[in-house]
């Protein structure tokens, strides 16, 4: 019985490792400048963890094979061991070194996006999440955002972010439920939430960030592939959380600039057209 269990553990270990090595269930393609670094970091982590996992499971199988009880007899009898302090210290230190090193390596990639300011010339888009809709606020042709005031929020008037229409720079501002950005140009998102905590997630962006009520959280990235990608809320935000989804559109420069210069009504129509034009996934540009 012990040997059967050992074989079962080895088979399960092999199958698990195969699921990762095969690549069939790997991440979707990366579409940002920081994506490859992020993926490399993940790969290193998964190799280290995978090797440790495989070694531990194979070891467990060996022990079962040697010491597992059997009616037929012939197995060695296990003996009690109090353990080895030296061994404990060694593997604790080795584990600590490996994990702290992985953390330090990963921190570099993460900090570039979250701790540093967005590069000069980044396009800025303000994101206001609400139950259960994404609102992306574009500054319009003048590149200036109008003032927003929570007292002016009126969903029935389609003023989801409380934009003060009379404030300077507000007239050409556009608020739509789709995130459109320009390829090869850094984008800065300023994230806020109207009600509860939400989380913006586009798997292809290798990027997930919470939006917290009362905070303006600034993040940035540079998309390098055009196309249409699903955008979801990744924080359970209420009964209809599953309905809180949208798209990220990465557009070629000419298409983006042309749309960004349009007055609000045409901007919205153009966005709808572009959403229909692009199939899901990346397209060469």
């Amino acid at each position: 019985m012990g040997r059967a269990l050992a074989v079962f553990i080895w088979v399960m270990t092999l199958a698990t490792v195969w699921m990762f090595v095969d690549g069939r269930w790997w991440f979707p393609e990366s579409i940002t400048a920081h994506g490859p670094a992020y993926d490399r970091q993940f790969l290193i982590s998964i190799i280290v963890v995978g090797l440790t996992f495989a070694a531990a499971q194979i070891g467990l199988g060996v022990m079962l094979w040697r010491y597992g009880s059997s009616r037929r007899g012939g197995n060695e009898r296990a003996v009690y061991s109090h353990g080895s302090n030296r061994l404990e210290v060694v593997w604790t230190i080795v584990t600590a070194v490996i994990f702290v090193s992985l953390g330090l390596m990963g921190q570099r990639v993460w900090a570039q996006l979250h701790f540093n300011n967005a590069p000069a010339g980044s396009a800025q888009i303000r994101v206001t999440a609400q139950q259960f809709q994404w609102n992306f606020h574009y500054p319009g042709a003048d590149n200036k955002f109008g003032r927003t005031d929570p007292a002016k929020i009126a969903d029935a008037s389609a003023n989801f972010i409380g934009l003060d229409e009379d404030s300077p720079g507000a007239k050409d501002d556009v608020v739509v439920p789709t995130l459109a950005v320009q390829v090869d140009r850094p984008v800065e998102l300023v994230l806020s939430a109207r009600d509860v905590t939400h989380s913006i997630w586009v798997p292809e962006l290798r990027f997930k960030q919470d939006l917290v009520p009362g905070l303006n959280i600034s993040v940035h990235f540079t998309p390098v592939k055009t196309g249409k990608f699903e955008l979801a809320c990744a924080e359970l935000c209420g009964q209809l959380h599953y309905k809180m989804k949208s798209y990220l559109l990465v557009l070629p420069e000419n298409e983006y600039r042309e749309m960004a210069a349009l007055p609000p009504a045409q901007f919205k129509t153009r966005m709808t057209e572009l959403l229909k034009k692009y199939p899901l996934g990346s397209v060469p540009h």
Partner: protein
Amino acid sequence: MMMKRAQMLLLLLAVLGLLTLSMASCGGGEEDDDLAEDDASPAESAGAKYTPSGNEGTVTGTIAFTGAVPEPISISMDADATCGAANPNAVVEDVVVKDGKLGNVFIYVKDGKTADDGKNIANLTFDVPTETKTLDQKGCHYTPHVIGVMVGQKLSVTNSDKTSHNVNVQAKSNPQFNQSQTTGAPPIEKTFVRAETLIPVKCQVHPWMKSYIGVVKHPFHAVSGEDGTYEIKGLPAGTYTLVAWHEKLGEKTQSVTVGAKESKAQDFSFGGGATTSLQPGGSFEMLPALDLPMLGGH
């Protein structure tokens, strides 16, 4: 001895069972909405039943809009492609003006006395219309935008869209309900037990969707059409306070005297300027958001 103990045990169990049952039934009684107590039987609280004499009058009128007509604001429905396909030219309906006339105004008799016997109309009871009013969700907006029902009249909420909606009826004096309605789901049928003007209805899935239900104790209410006109029929002769309510432009009140079989014209006028907003966006009170410097602040 054993028999006696078993009998005692059975007796004890029976008493306990009875106690539990009586407590449960008391609890159930409490849960039966106290809301139902007052107005479920309007005849008791409102007094005498009105019998039509055939001499009732009519109030008609037009709601004018005098301000600058707001630019139509288009609604981007890209987040739900089904909505966008069904209603590609959707615009907000908070102020609907056509040729200087204002639609979606709820007009109702607030109070007043009949000419015959000087009875307060609020103390009379009227037959509840058997007609079921329908609030439909079509093209991801509510049709009609404003709807009037009488206390006890049936309201049916239907979903004609190929997407799910969530009907959130935010009543204050009536029981609230907040119910999902998938495509093809049966209508949600409700009645209201108390007069309430007006109850906001919103869809949790599509935040732009908004509607209002006016619940009145009597059948003397109407909603102005696209051409700004309204008609209230069957009103006993008397002098009444007539209220015109608009979701964004506030409330106007006028006194109207209707004679027997008379058709009285009573117009209202709303300006586009600063009036009391009955639908304040300011249900939100937020402190200014903090910029987190450590997260690449500005």
